[in-house]
Structures are given as C-alpha cells and as structure tokens.
C-alpha cells in the first residue's frame, strides 16, 4: 500500500492508538508503511510524541498537580524518583514538608470508596483564602485511598501554613462530605533550625 492509498490525514486518536500499540497487527503494519512514506502524518506523530515527552518530563519534575491512582507514584518510585508520601486518615491531619531532594510528594487521603460513583476534591487554600473544586477526580473504587499529587513547585513556595482538603461524594446531584484532611505544612529550612 502506498501512502497515497491511506485515508489521510490520520486522526490523532489513531496515531495515539498506533503509538501505544493498541492497533491490531495488520493495521499497525499499514500505518508503519504509511508513516514512512508520508511526511505530514509522521510530523503529526512526532508532535504527539513530543507532547508525551513533555508530559513525562513535567511528571518526573513533580510540577504537575492532580489526582491519580496508586499506579503512578509506584511507577515514579520504580523509576528512581524520590517520592515523599503522607497517609492522612479520614478526618485526620498530618504535619508535612518537602525536602530539597524530594522529587514528588504524594498525599494519600484514606477513605472507603466502594459504592462511590463520582468523587470531587475541594482544596481549601491556606488561611481560608478561597477554595478550588476538582470535579470528577479519578479513583480506584477497590482502593482505600485517593492519591493526590499537590505539585512540588507549589509546596516549595509555601510558608508555614495549614491547608485542608475535602472529599465529596456526588450522588443524584447532591454533595456528601465523606472525608476532611488537614495538612500542617512547615518549610524544610524551618525544620532544620
């Protein structure tokens, strides 16, 4: 098949599926050949690969903030990154910091998750300065915690402060508070004095 025979441009979803090895053998072989003959489509794939490289870099740097599952911090630790973890009991609190050598900080918010269909996370900023609601956060219903990466850039910039997070189960359009978590943050330097 020449590259002219292939329906072009190749949709980004197909290129991503190809890159991730999700296509069947025949489709993958067809795309292999098409991409070797088509500068435009290989350029699109190159852009996708660069995007992936960028996401990987930001993740390893700890810059990304978000809610993930247990799989991500496990992989980061396996890759040799230094991961600082805090397990926070339901309606409990923790004293926390970030060390200069830490690459990633993970907060594990402990809560039973079975039967939860939608989960939102409310982050109450230090000293009551507003809040942010992250809707529909991902979670593994068979797990007993929600994995939050607060972002190392943010943490390194924090003074001594207290931050709260709330987990909200959204059921039939109404909210139910299922856990509240308090973080007493102290900058690393202050802990050394």
């Amino acid at each position, binding site marked *: *098949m*020449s*590259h002219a025979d292939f329906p072009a441009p190749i949709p*980004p*979803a197909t290129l*991503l599926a*190809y*890159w*991730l*090895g*999700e296509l069947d053998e025949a489709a993958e072989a067809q795309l*292999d*050949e*098409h*991409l*070797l*003959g*088509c*500068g435009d489509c*290989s*350029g699109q*794939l*190159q852009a996708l*690969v*660069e*995007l*992936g*490289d*960028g*996401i*990987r*870099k*930001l*993740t390893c740097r700890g*810059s*990304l*903030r*978000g*809610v*993930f*599952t*247990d*799989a*991500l911090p496990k*992989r*980061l630790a396996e890759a040799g990154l230094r991961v600082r973890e805090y397990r926070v009991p339901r309606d409990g609190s923790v004293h926390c910091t970030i060390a200069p050598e830490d690459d990633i900080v993970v907060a594990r918010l402990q809560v039973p998750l079975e039967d939860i269909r939608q989960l939102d*996370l409310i982050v109450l900023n230090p000293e009551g300065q507003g809040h942010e609601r*992250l*809707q*529909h*956060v*991902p*979670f*593994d*219903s*068979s797990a007993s915690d929600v994995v939050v990466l607060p972002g190392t850039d943010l943490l390194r910039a924090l003074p001594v402060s207290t931050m709260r997070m709330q987990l909200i189960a959204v059921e039939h359009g109404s909210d139910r508070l299922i856990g509240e978590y308090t973080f007493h943050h102290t900058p690393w330097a202050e802990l050394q004095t």
Partner: protein
Amino acid sequence: MFTLAYASRVEADPQDFALDAAEPDDASLARRIEAARPGVATAAEAELYRRLAPRVRLYGLKHLRERQAAADLVQQVLLMTIERLRAGQVREPERLASYVLGMCRMVVLDLQRTHARHERLLGTFAQDLSGDGPTTPHLDDASLLRCLQRLPERERSILVMTFYDDRQARDVAVDLGISEGNVRVIRHRGLGRLRECMDSSEAAP
C-alpha cells in the same frame, strides 16, 4: 550531516540539480540517486535523508522504545537504503516506503538480537556521519504545564497515566476501574483540548 561528508569526497554531478524548483516526491529522489553515478547525486541523497530520518527514527522509537537504538536504526537503515539505491538494487522506487519498512523490520530484529552487528556497521560508516539525528523542536514546558492544569481533572489524569510510560487504554482502565472505551473517549477529548490550548499558546504573541 550525512551529506556534507559525501560532498567533500565527490565531484558534484551537474544532473544533481537543485531540488527546490519543484518539490520531487520520494520516488523521484530515489530514481535520481539510482540514475546517477554512485555517490554523485548528493543533493538528492541529502534530501531523501532529511525526509526519511525523522520517519525512521519514529519507527525506531515505536518498535525499540529506546532513543539510542532508534538513532542507530536511522543510521543503519538510511545508509543501507542509499547504498542500495546507488547500486540500483531497489526495484520499485515508487514503493520506497515499503522498501524502507522492510529494511527497518530487518534492522530492528537485528538490533534486538545482537549489538555486535550494529557496532560494526556504525564503525564502518561512522566517517560518513556526523552523528546527528533529526532535531526535534523544543516544546515550551511552561505552556504545556499551563495547558495541562487547565484540563478537567479526569482528562489530565488519564493523559498523564497514558503518557508517563505509554500505557494502553486497557491498563489505565484497570487502574481506574472504568471501561477501556471510556478511557479512550476521555483520552481523546483531553488530547484534543491540550493540542488546542498548545496551538493557541504558540499563536499568542
């Protein structure tokens, strides 16, 4: 680059005319190389190398998942392809992509089996190469971070879980306890929004 090393050793062929007048397709370049005396169609060889190197590199990254191995693949495949074009051993230049694919498959298997052969090939042809692969444009980290943080939580998480170590939808679905189809939909939507945001960041003054 590859062609500069050649240019210093060969006399330019007047038939190796400027390539920018009318953009020749890959097959035309291949025919020019075949028609010229070996090593003389330097401009055609350079252009073919310039076009094929990033494509072969992507093939290598996809199938070998290792940057250095992909760079080795580029050098080996393109050197062999051009050598065979020079020798008139590529029977259907209009099916060059198919030919290059065959070479890629062969070399990937070879690279996977043993390092000895690729070291030898690199040693043989090293003088013709200045060791540079295709350059990749730099992605602006700050824009990417800003665009990622703007995504809805689920889209961002699924994109990160996908791209961090190139995980398939079915694996991400298992982690999240949702369907594979659902992961694909969220992933597709997130990728679209991310690209849109990055495009508008690039367009911004």
